[in-house]
């Protein structure tokens, strides 16, 4: 049969954002895929060069919509490296709270999106609804629901409001109870068992070389996590596990790893770990100042040099390469988003041979986030 071309995106229910894949299809088997970014390019890296070190804090969360806090955290860590600042202990714990809440809310969106891609639409409605409880907490903590502009170089913007930790505990209990329902609807569903294992396989021996990171790498059997490998914030003091193939606890190990099934199970287990981390933070959080004394924002100069900071986002390794020439504005900031490799090279390679119907679940399980590809 003659090949035909198929466009998935930029407006398509099976795509993870404003992004397009150009597919060449034979029958219903994909023979070639090309990624086409360009619908979301907002020139953040250029804009950052024209704003002062402090003004950038309000700009960068917008790079990644589902999980904006990682941007604030890496930027702050990059600037702190250049300034040679040690931030207060309490600030580290508050950052951990924000980052873990962001991880849960981002995983909830991914799980909902993935379930939609295999036809289980109810899950998405539930997870988006439950994510709202986390957004309520964010609103109470930072004043905003999506873009929080909360983590600053030197610490965080303000201390926890009264009763915040009690509310957080309540929401965690609620979310933990909800996991059982997601399991019934998606993770123990026959549709998931039949469609996900051994689909969209990233070859295990190539995974690291291809730049696969985060849950996608852990689904291949590596227990690498930036929180353990290159620890930051309060993570060195906290006790948690890194879910990876084939250590799936109560879940069955279906397939041979590196596939849609393993990637989604890893994400599901990470929510449990995040809840565990947050509970420890609630118990352990020390008293003290929440930020250093910041310099005058208009005359704030950062010493010349290079710095690289990385965190574990819900999608993988998220890093900023910050270059200063000693001025009031960054000289260059390069954003290393995890989807840059997952969404372009990895997807273009593994899409060959996939069924059209499996393409969407593959990119959802890789958690491709278009905004951090083109910034």
């Amino acid at each position, binding site marked *: 049969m003659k090949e035909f071309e198929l466009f998935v995106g930029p407006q398509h229910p099976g795509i993870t954002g404003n992004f397009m894949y150009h597919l060449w299809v034979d029958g219903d088997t994909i023979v070639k895929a090309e990624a086409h970014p360009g619908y979301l390019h907002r020139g953040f890296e*250029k804009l950052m060069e024209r704003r002062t070190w402090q003004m950038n804090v309000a700009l960068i969360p917008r790079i990644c919509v589902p999980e904006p806090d990682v941007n604030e955290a890496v930027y702050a860590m990059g600037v*702190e490296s250049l300034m040679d600042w040690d931030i207060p202990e309490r600030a580290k714990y508050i950052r951990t709270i924000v980052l873990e809440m962001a991880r849960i809310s981002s995983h909830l969106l991914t799980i909902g999106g993935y379930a939609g891609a295999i036809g289980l639409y109810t899950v998405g409605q539930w997870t988006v609804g439950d994510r709202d409880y986390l957004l309520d907490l964010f609103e109470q903590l930072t004043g905003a629901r999506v873009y929080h502009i909360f983590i600053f170089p030197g610490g965080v913007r303000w201390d926890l409001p009264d009763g915040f930790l009690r509310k957080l505990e309540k929401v965690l209990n609620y979310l933990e109870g909800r996991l059982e329902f997601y399991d019934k609807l998606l993770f123990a569903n026959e549709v998931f068992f039949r469609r996900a294992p051994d689909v969209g396989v990233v070859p295990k021996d190539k995974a690291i070389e291809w*730049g696969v990171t985060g849950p996608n790498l852990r689904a291949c059997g590596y227990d690498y996590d930036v929180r353990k490998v*290159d620890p930051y914030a309060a993570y060195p003091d906290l006790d948690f596990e890194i879910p990876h193939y084939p250590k799936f606890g109560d879940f069955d190990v279906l397939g041979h790893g590196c596939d849609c099934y393993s990637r989604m199970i890893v994400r599901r287990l990470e929510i449990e770990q995040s809840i565990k981390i947050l509970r420890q933070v609630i118990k352990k959080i020390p008293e003290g100042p929440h930020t250093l004394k910041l310099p005058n924002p208009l005359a704030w100069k950062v010493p010349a040099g290079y710095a690289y900071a990385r965190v574990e986002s819900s999608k993988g390794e998220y890093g900023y390469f910050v270059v200063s020439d000693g001025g009031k504005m960054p000289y260059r900031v390069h954003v*290393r988003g995890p989807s840059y490799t997952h969404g372009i090279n990895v997807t273009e390679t593994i899409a060959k041979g996939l069924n059209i119907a499996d393409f969407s679940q593959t990119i959802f399980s890789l958690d491709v986030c278009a905004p951090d590809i083109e910034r």
Partner: protein
Amino acid sequence: MKAEDIFKDLELKFENLKVKGNTLPRYKAEVQPDKLEEAIIKFKSNGFNHFVALSCIDWIKDEKFELVYHLFSYEEKEDVFLSIFLPRNEPKYKTLRHLFPQIETYEREIHEMFGVEFEGNDRLGEFILEDWDNMPPMRKDFDTVKYGKEKYESVPLINEGGEKE
């Protein structure tokens, strides 16, 4: 093999970058462009098999582009930044996509945003920008305001002769 030993083998001088927040050491070294491929192969075969990113910096005062190849080793837990400098008036380098496939994408972006030519990469060309008709926009001498005014109809500011409401 530790990064310091590999640097010694390659006879490269390196500096330690400051790290706060994260904990692992980061080493940065300048490499001659013709020695870079050999250096990356050496690092790759000694455990530095995670290619993190390729960044480009426009040092307009020195008339140079800096390309920073960033590698990481999960075994040794060390970061290595290898940088090369290219002349700004004729930035040309060879592609290294055969070493790590994702380098291809970084080269496409740097070609579009900075105008650096990578010989051997056949996918250079339109990537993020479409129908771009000006100098590569991430260069330091690209004036975004001027481009915006020329390209799109804009309402003049009051101090530029615009009307008061």
